[in-house]
């Protein structure tokens, strides 16, 4: 089913509004929107592997951090332009995903989830160990450069691209095969789907976005350290965003990213200790009460197509 003209027009209007926004918006507004773009990239990417195939990645921030360090090292030590370094960040994250995904995704069951749970700690230890290259615990400073507005556009384009890729996948045969794996992996195999290879492809796709976003964030902030790019909280936040919005859908992660980011800025920033606790509660509640998230509920109530 092709998207309705009204929906396309709305999408074009929002994209246009966001494209001209830096001309009018305040510095804070642009910075916040940039953050929303980043969360859309992260949440939609997590959705590609975990929402579509059902293989939970508990360490997706590892790709963000790997991208951040790849990009930052190339900028600071090799003098690369940041656009190219961002691409390299995505590529670096994909290489890491290949190294972890190849052994872990051949197996069924929780192996992948737990391997991802440990990956973050391991990368943090490695970054601290190779001090000469990464600056270790002291962090890595990038040459000063005010590129917030160009980065805003690149991050926005990345968010759009990841969403578009999700749409293309969900409406394609490839996406159907991924969802078959999620629903019944044995049946998928019996139908002749090479499950290991499909899971690996989805995983590689899901690593590229966070890698690029990590490199862009490193450039934007001008300074990175192990604690700032490998926080477990980032993984938790992207999982909560996807679950809340609706996993396995195109717009669920976008909805979750926007709503939860705004909620976080307005309300929860005042209660810094309660909000991670609340995230845990949201995960429990969504899994038990509305496994398909807000969008899932809307789809059922308003008979929306499953491909949104």
């Amino acid at each position, binding site marked *: 089913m092709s998207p309705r003209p009204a929906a396309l027009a709305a999408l074009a209007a929002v994209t246009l509004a966001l494209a001209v926004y830096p001309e009018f918006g305040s510095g804070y507004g642009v910075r916040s929107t940039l953050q929303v773009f980043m969360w859309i990239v992260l949440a939609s990417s997590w959705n590609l592997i975990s929402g579509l195939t059902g293989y*939970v990645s*508990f360490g997706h921030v590892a790709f963000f951090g790997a991208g951040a360090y790849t990009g930052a090292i190339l900028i600071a030590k090799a003098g690369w332009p940041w656009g190219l370094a961002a691409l390299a960040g995505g590529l670096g994250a994909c290489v890491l995903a290949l190294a972890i995904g190849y052994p*872990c995704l051949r197996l069924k069951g929780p192996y992948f*989830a737990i391997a991802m749970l440990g990956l973050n700690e391991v990368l943090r*230890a490695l970054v601290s160990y190779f001090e000469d290259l990464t600056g270790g615990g002291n962090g890595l400073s990038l040459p000063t450069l005010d590129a917030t507005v160009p980065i805003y556009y690149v991050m926005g384009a990345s968010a759009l691209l990841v969403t578009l890729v999700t749409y293309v996948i969900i409406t394609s045969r490839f996406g159907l095969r991924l969802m078959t794996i999620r629903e019944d992996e044995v049946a998928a195999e019996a139908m002749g789907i090479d499950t290991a290879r499909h899971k690996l492809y989805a995983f590689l796709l899901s690593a590229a976005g966070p890698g690029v976003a990590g490199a862009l964030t490193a450039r934007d902030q001008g300074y990175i350290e192990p604690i700032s790019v490998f926080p477990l909280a980032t993984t938790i936040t992207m999982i909560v965003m996807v679950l809340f919005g609706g996993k396995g859908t195109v717009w669920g992660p976008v909805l979750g990213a926007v709503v939860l980011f705004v909620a976080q800025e307005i309300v929860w920033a005042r209660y810094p200790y*309660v909000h991670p*606790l609340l995230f845990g509660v*949201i995960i429990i509640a969504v899994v*038990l009460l509305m496994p398909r998230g807000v969008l899932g509920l809307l789809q059922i109530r308003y008979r929306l197509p499953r491909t949104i």
Partner: protein
Amino acid sequence: MNVFVTPAMLGQVVISGILSGALYAMVALGLALIFGVMRIINVAHGPLLMLGAYATFFLYSALGINPYLTVPVSMLVLFAVGLLLERTLVFRVVDAPELSSLLLTFGISIALVNLAQLLFTSDLRSVEYLAGSWVVGPLALSKARVVAFTVASALTGLSFFFLQRTRLGKAIRATSQNREVAMVCGIDVQRIHLVTFGLSAGLAGAGGALIAVIVAIQPEMGQIWTFKSFLVIVLGGAGNYPGALLGGVLLGLIEQLASLFLTTQLSEVVAYVLLVLILLVRPQGLLGGRQT
């Protein structure tokens, strides 16, 4: 990089590895039990251990109870917490797709860690008891670790005796081997799930109580134990309970050898690479899977 390794240093490392290995084995046995019986990996296993450590800390600092006498109390408290979690939340996802149980226990884990942060703050706490070492020839054995080894070995032995010899233990193993057949034989599988979850949490609680005397206590101390316990299970073979013993001691040895030959910083990296290699070469574990 340490180039000069004397036999005494090697001996020290092997002993330390075995000492911490018994602790790993006991905590991992808890995780293996739930996995075997309910087919769920409990991501909150490490945070449960953290609660056990806090239980010991508060009993020791507020009431002045000998920390080793708090081990059974920690176990009981965590047994109760385990029953509560199973009865209210976890039983709902036993037959659900893996995604649900992983995410649910992940949510529980986040909630527990942050609840601890709210209630106990993230200050580092310590139980100062039994410091120092016994010197035996060229070896120095940390007193706290030797006691932890002894208690953990005893509790692990007791658990195996329970699994092998008692009716309830046999019912647990039967459920783990084949739930449908166990049900046909008249075993109340719901009750077995409940008891297993409680026991598993109890073992985590005992682990927390023993670790409280060795390392600093803080809300985030637990997560790494979920990973390590899983690694132990993978080493020994998933669903293979005796395999957890071998896996525990192996992990202890590997970590210690890594810190001797490389650096302590990288011991977790070595353990991780080992996990990936094992999954690549021998995913059924060293002893093979699912013999109970």
